[in-house]
């Protein structure tokens, strides 16, 4: 993570589009009167969905909507790394390079992205269609390596498959999200490797038998106590 600051290039103004404005109102209404500031994160997210990134005018507009000081909104926007403070491409590719992904080959994925798009990490293509970024753990280690594009997780990617995804996006198609190597969710590739047998009950599962054994032992003890001493 590096120091997060507002982009030097800012649009002149910001206003929520009608459908977003409607959603913003619904979000604010969720919080009790006087607690509207709680809506700051969903509203920043909404602004990011509309513009692609969080702009300075958007921060001012949200501050005004929620009756907060702009600096308080800026604090939130700079704290959370998923709020983009710089313009990003239409398809924002975030490749995880944290340890599990790196062990599973994320370096090759990043390299493939760079080659394919002709941009480096943290950069945007000239046509504004793609931007590339490395991120810390996105929480999909079981399907490492992975890349997040927009809201979708593309998992089990490698150099070839991320290339195909980018090609598809370039053609304007919507590639299928999820594991790219044929896995179903996080199930193993091919056959199951564990839990193949029918499950066996754990010991002491048969309570009937246990109860019978217990009662028998009790009866034996009683019989032994009742037997005349010799």
């Amino acid at each position, binding site marked *: *993570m*590096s*120091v*997060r*600051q*507002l982009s030097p290039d800012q649009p002149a103004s910001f206003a929520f589009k009608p459908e977003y404005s409607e959603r913003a109102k619904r979000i604010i209404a969720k919080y009790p009167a006087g607690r509207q500031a709680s809506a700051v994160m969903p509203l920043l997210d909404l602004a990011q969905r509309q513009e692609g990134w969080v702009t*300075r005018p958007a921060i001012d507009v949200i501050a005004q909507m929620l009756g*907060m*000081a*702009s*600096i*308080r909104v*800026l*604090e939130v926007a*700079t*704290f959370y790394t998923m709020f983009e403070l710089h313009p990003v491409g239409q398809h924002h590719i975030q490749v995880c390079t944290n340890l599990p992904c790196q062990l599973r080959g994320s370096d090759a994925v990043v390299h493939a992205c760079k080659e394919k798009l002709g941009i480096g990490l943290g950069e945007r293509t000239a046509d504004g269609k793609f931007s590339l970024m490395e991120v810390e753990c996105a929480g999909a280690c079981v399907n490492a390596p992975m890349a997040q594009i927009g809201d979708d997780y593309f998992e089990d990617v490698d150099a070839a498959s991320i290339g195909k995804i980018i090609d598809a996006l370039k053609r304007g198609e919507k590639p299928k999200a999820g594991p790219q190597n044929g896995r179903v969710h996080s199930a193993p590739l091919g056959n199951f490797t564990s839990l193949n047998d029918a499950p066996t009950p754990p010991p002491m599962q048969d309570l009937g038998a246990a109860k019978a054994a217990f009662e028998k032992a009790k009866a034996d003890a009683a019989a032994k106590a009742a037997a005349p001493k010799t």
Partner: protein
Amino acid sequence: MTKLTIDGKSVEVPPNTTIIQAAELAGVEIPRFCYHERLSIAGNCRMCLVEVEKSPKPVASCAMPVAEGMVVHTRSDKANKARNGVMEFLLINHPLDCPICDQGGECDLQDQAMAYGTDRGRYDEAKRAVKDKNMGPLVSTIMTRCIHCTRCVRFATEVAGVQELGATGRGEDMEITTYLEKALSSELSGNVVDLCPVGALTSKPYAFSARPWELRKTETIDVMDAVGSAVRVDARGREVMRVLPRLNEIVNEEWLSDKGRHACDGLQYQRLDKPYVRGANGKLKEATWAEAFAAIAAKVKNLPGTKVAALAGDLVDAEAMFALKQLMSSLGSPNLDCRQDGAAVDPAVRASYLFNSGIAGIDQADALLIVGADPRKEAPIINARIRKRYLRGGVHISVIGEKLDLTYPYHWVGASPDLIAACKPPEGSKTPMIILGMAALTRPDGAAILESARRVAEQTGVVKEGWNGFNVLHTAAARVGGLDVGFAPGAGGKDTRRILDAASKGEIEVVYLLGADEIDTAKLGKAFVIYQGHHGDKGAHRADVVLPGSAYTEKSGTYVNTEGRVQRAERAVFPPGDAREDWAIVRALSEALGKKLPFDSLDQVRAAMRAANPIFAAIDSVTKAEWKPFGTAGTIAATGFNYPIKNYYMTDPISRASRTMAQCTEEFVMGSKARTGTHG
């Protein structure tokens, strides 16, 4: 009460106290950076860790409430080890640049590193570097030194009431900044420099000018507004280097307004250091004291007293006004006034011109009506006190006047003062309060407004047995002192407005301006003007004879603040050149005029003052004023107020001469003005 043991000492404290507060009561000092008793608790520096028995880990004492039977060790091995660790972490990124840091010698981190730090680090990594931020002309930033205690952020948000400072980013990348690096738009911004425990925020005007151990420290009071904040003047040689606030719970707590703190460089410029006499060519010429006195004597000696008048300014000490009043009465002149602005207060009734509840009385108020006052500009310290009261809750604040940004919300009654008659505090209010500003009293209908306010006060319980919430907020440090020595029109005498009228008509031939600069000097007409003061301001430009006096840092003088508290300003440096103490100038002049005043030393002046008005005997305290009728019934015009302070940073000769205040004016008052090519 909760009983606990701290370092073997048993203490009893009220419940809801924190350990650090309890330790303070027990006389045990716990090191801290982020904790400050006047700010909310952040608990983020971890320097105040202590060992509490039966607690598995060291406890942050600033955030932990006391519990019955708690046993606290603040100096045990465990506590010390914890602090050593915290200090080591703090020093990972803090630069070791104390020799070039302005905080050096008065730095909390430096001091505590001596106590808890090690003499070598275990970290080879590069330290972080942080971009410096712009916080305006008063606060210099070296953000690499910041340890993220967030005291400045909490001060700006809570005390100053301007939500402009914040912490962006997080973890190692956390940075303190103002929104878009705008200057901090508060009249109390200088206080963040005092609060900063390291050298991240330092005073810009004072940058690299002195080390604390070189300075001679004088405890005195501030005269830039009528609050009378307790200050400490730090001087080196003949120069006042800086002004810092002193603790005074009943007046300024520990804050100081920006003007009080930073106008002190004005004491270096535009000074009158020699007597001047206007020559035949119409130009002021340097003269000796004897020549100046001779020029005055030639004019005054054969004149009837009624043709002489005196006006006292906003920064004058009570002794000088007392001496001049004596001189005027020996000349037979009843024409004297200390109210340059023509405020309609009644000099005969002390309760009519005091902030009767006292500044600390604001803490008890449960309803507040502000009429024609802009406390944020006229007395930032009092405004902060009102905001503190607002934050505690349960107070209803209303305003008659312009819709000003006072840093707290209020109910706006309307713009015109005729609405006051219908005002009453909300149902069940026990301690209501009215604050009457100079904008209301300096109008032609000021006396009617005063009367109307008095009637409302009497009828709505603002004034009653055991509570007097009728408050006049003055803007000048000398005003209450002047009224208390009786520097007001005598029998048949003229007040400021009439003196100026008479002077322009030629009825008054000699006008003595004792530091009076806030009058329309064009109205002095052809009168012979004597100006006694310390700065070459409006009054001196018009004067025919200039007598160089001394500023508030250069004499021992009595000032009475807006609540009627008699306070002493003490001499920190000597006045420049031939300038003298003001009472002594008047005394010397009296001899030249053949009306020798009966005192030869400051003690004798003060004894005479005490004899004339016993309130001057009670230094540092307030003599409660007796409630009597005052004001003149009349019609009140339904027009808005004309506030006296347009530019907070320049209100008197000292602040007008100050370069720092000029920068502030440019930044905050003329901010919208386009910058031209000559600006850097």
